[in-house]
């Protein structure tokens, strides 16, 4: 018998066999990902949350004697050029040389753009003579020109100028509150009621034009209508005049309340009291009052319209536009995507053609979003919209109604962009419904459609919801295509209001994502916009998270309905 050498096996498995290095690699990759996301969220949250907190105002006396005052925002170290260093005292030159040529500098938000043509100023450490925090300095937020940093010199509260001790703070605050009330009333009159009258006049004119287009300008109908419209217009004009007179009276009243502000250098600036949105003595603000300013700034941000090229005021129209567009997109994409996937998975013969369609759908998800924007503009706005205008709104031409970007076209464009996600997710959810329950249903005498409707779809619903959530998240964060199909920097009217037909799908709208881009990179003063970028980003993330949380909650409810273990 030939002896066989036994196969000797290593009894102890080595580290590689356990996959140890891979486990570290996988864990490491996850950790890096989590850290990146956590860091990003932390950065956005911290900057977003802290932006509105009122800081102190520093009064800086430079070495050459000039005075400036402002809110310190951030500091950095930089390498001053030789020419700059030439003018500094020798001991500073030595210190900077000891620091490898680096000096630090501080950015102050000095405001007073109308006086100095700048909002911010860098102050290098070697320029500083002394820094103090005078109690009488105040931070004024204004309707125009951005903030003012300085003090109140005198005020006219309707009864002649008051100065010094005669000017009580309580009286000033009260007069200010009334002035703001008046300001809002004027705005409501001019924007709201006069706007309504204007809209009605426009509607009358359009009706007349429609009659002219339909019956001819010389026809009996047109002439009769023209007479009526003329009478209506006269009545409306009278209403308009009355409202305008009321607004003018209010404005005249408003003119009597004024404050004169002075900056640290004594330059004066006279303001209408109503043009100050908020003012506070930054250096003698208690934590409680600070919280008040903080919350009131958040309130303004969330519920007001933007001012000053979007760098101030609120973002309510953008919040509203984002939410409306996303919801409309989901409403459009859900049935479309689900029905398509149903046909692909349940009815179409699984062959080469279906495979090609499926691959194409998957590839659609990879098309750059701006391409969808171009398509949306070219197809929806310029083709479909233009045809709608011709058919239904001929009297408004040449100014387009649906023939340009708007809420509806933006939503449909995004629906198109996200439909592959929904199709793929729905197909997977449908495929995951086991054959056994389908056969059980068919064996009960259910038709294919009844089986799909009563058994397959309910069971696939959570999976379909997951697809919709992904689509929603993608759609809500998309900006590039929107710039082509309806998002604007400043929309005068919300897409939903009290005017018939209440939903105005043709209107252009504002969007938080575009707002970020606009404030951060398109505004006059990107330094002033920077904090707003963070706040708006925080808001956008919160909004998307909220919408997703709602969808996930709904999905959990659906899942619980079919809960229970298999055995």
């Amino acid at each position, binding site marked *: 018998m030939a002896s066989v050498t036994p196969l000797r096996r290593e009894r102890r498995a080595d580290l590689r066999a356990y996959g140890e290095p891979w486990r570290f690699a996988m864990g490491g990759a996850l950790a890096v990902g989590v850290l990146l996301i956590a860091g990003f969220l932390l950065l956005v949250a911290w900057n977003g949350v802290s932006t509105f907190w009122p800081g102190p105002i520093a009064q800086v006396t430079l070495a050459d004697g000039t005075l400036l005052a402002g809110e310190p925002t951030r500091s950095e170290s930089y390498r001053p050029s030789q020419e700059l260093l030439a003018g500094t005292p020798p001991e500073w030159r030595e210190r900077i040389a000891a620091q490898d040529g680096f000096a630090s500098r501080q950015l102050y938000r000095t405001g007073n753009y109308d006086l100095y043509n700048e909002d911010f100023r860098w102050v290098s450490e070697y320029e500083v003579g002394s820094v103090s925090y005078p109690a009488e300095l105040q931070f004024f937020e204004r309707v125009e020109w951005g903030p003012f940093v300085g003090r109140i010199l005198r005020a006219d509260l309707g009864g002649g100028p008051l100065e010094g001790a005669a000017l009580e703070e309580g009286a000033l605050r009260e007069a200010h509150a009334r002035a703001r009330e008046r300001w809002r009333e004027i705005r409501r009159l001019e924007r709201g009621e006069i706007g309504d009258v204007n809209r009605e006049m426009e509607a009358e004119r359009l009706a007349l034009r429609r009659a002219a287009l339909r019956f001819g300008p010389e026809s009996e109908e047109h002439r009769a209508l023209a007479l009526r419209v003329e009478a209506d217009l006269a009545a409306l004009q009278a209403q308009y005049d009355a409202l305008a007179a009321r607004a003018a009276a209010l404005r005249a009243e408003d003119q009597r309340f004024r404050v004169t502000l002075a900056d640290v250098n004594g330059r004066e600036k006279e303001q209408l009291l109503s043009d100050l949105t908020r003012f506070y003595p930054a250096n003698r603000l208690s934590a409680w009052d600070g919280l008040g300013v903080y919350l009131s700034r958040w309130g303004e941000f969330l519920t007001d319209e933007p001012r000053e090229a979007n760098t101030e005021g609120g973002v309510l129209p953008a919040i509203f536009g984002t939410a409306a567009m996303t919801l409309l997109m989901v409403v459009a994409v859900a049935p479309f995507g689900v029905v398509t996937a149903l046909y692909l998975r349940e009815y179409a013969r699984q062959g080469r053609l279906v495979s090609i369609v499926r691959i194409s759908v998957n590839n659609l998800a990879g098309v750059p979003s701006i391409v969808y924007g171009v398509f949306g503009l070219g197809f929806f706005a310029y083709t479909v919209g233009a045809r709608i205008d011709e058919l239904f709104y001929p009297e408004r031409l040449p100014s387009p109604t649906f023939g340009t970007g708007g809420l509806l076209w933006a939503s449909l464009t995004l629906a198109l962009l996200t439909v592959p996600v929904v199709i793929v997710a729905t197909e997977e959810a449908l495929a995951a419904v*086991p054959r*056994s*329950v389908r*056969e*059980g*249903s*068919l*064996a*009960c*005498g*259910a*038709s294919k459609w*009844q089986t799909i409707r*009563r*058994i397959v779809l*309910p*069971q696939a619903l959570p999976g379909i919801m997951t697809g919709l959530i992904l689509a929603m998240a993608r759609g809500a964060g998309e900006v590039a295509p929107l710039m082509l199909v309806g998002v604007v920097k400043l929309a005068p009217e919300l897409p939903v209001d009290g005017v018939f037909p209440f939903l105005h799908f043709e209107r252009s709208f504002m969007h938080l994502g575009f707002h970020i881009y606009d404030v951060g990179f398109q505004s006059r003063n990107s330094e002033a916009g920077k904090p707003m970028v963070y706040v708006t980003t925080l808001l956008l993330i919160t909004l998307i998270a909220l919408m997703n949380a709602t969808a996930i909650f709904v999905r959990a409810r659906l899942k619980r309905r*079919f*809960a*229970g*273990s*298999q*055995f």
Partner: protein
Amino acid sequence: MSEARQEPVDEGTAYHIVEGQGGTSLDIEKFSLWYGEARALREVTLRVQKGLVTSLIGPSGCGKSTLLRALNRMNDLIDGLRTEGHVRLEGEDLYGPGVDVIALRKRMGMVFQKPNPFPMSIFENVVYPLRVDGVRDRGLLAQTAERSLQASALWDEVKDRLHESALGLSGGQQQRLCIARAIAGDPDVLLMDEPCSALDPIATSRIEELIAELRGRYTILIVTHNMQQAARVSDNTAFMYLGRLIEYGETQRVFLAPKLQRTQDYVTGRFG
């Protein structure tokens, strides 16, 4: 040592069945079936007796499940399926032109290998065949649910939780629920495709008791791998091999005194 057992399989089928009082329910005549090129059934001729329990036995791949699924045309879902021959239910050809497959399936209940309750309440599971027919009468639905659950011996266990999810039941309960669902539509025939293969012995014996109770009310055709089970529950047994019907006769005789050697070999466990 091995004997050459390559007997020809084209020996004629041996018939010696118990005749039911109602005559023939399902009349299968020279029925052949192909999955694409592969032939799964070869000229099967089988008369299923009305009101009796008939077992289909045979080794894996012999075509017994295929035959069962061919009876309510479950195989229609498969691409490339082709059939020849006839299957008649009470004289009506199931594979004739213009047959309404859905109406046909309503005359047959089917119970599958693994319990397949729908992800809905126990009540909705049972009345599903009625829901499909558009029945909305609450009284009728409740009555049917109770009758079917009682018939499937599940009523006492679930009567207090009819509106809880059916997925919370045990495997054996789920299978009895599926039986209740299958008989809720009041079919003529009950097709059972290895109904106990996923169940433990206790649940199995309950299903077998249930089959004994349902005997007489429905024509029952049951596919099983378990020969003791076939011996216990059925009146007639059909033994299939390689797509052919080899022997079809009274259960006692198929197991104790089969006519053909091949049947003898299978039931005594010499192959299979």
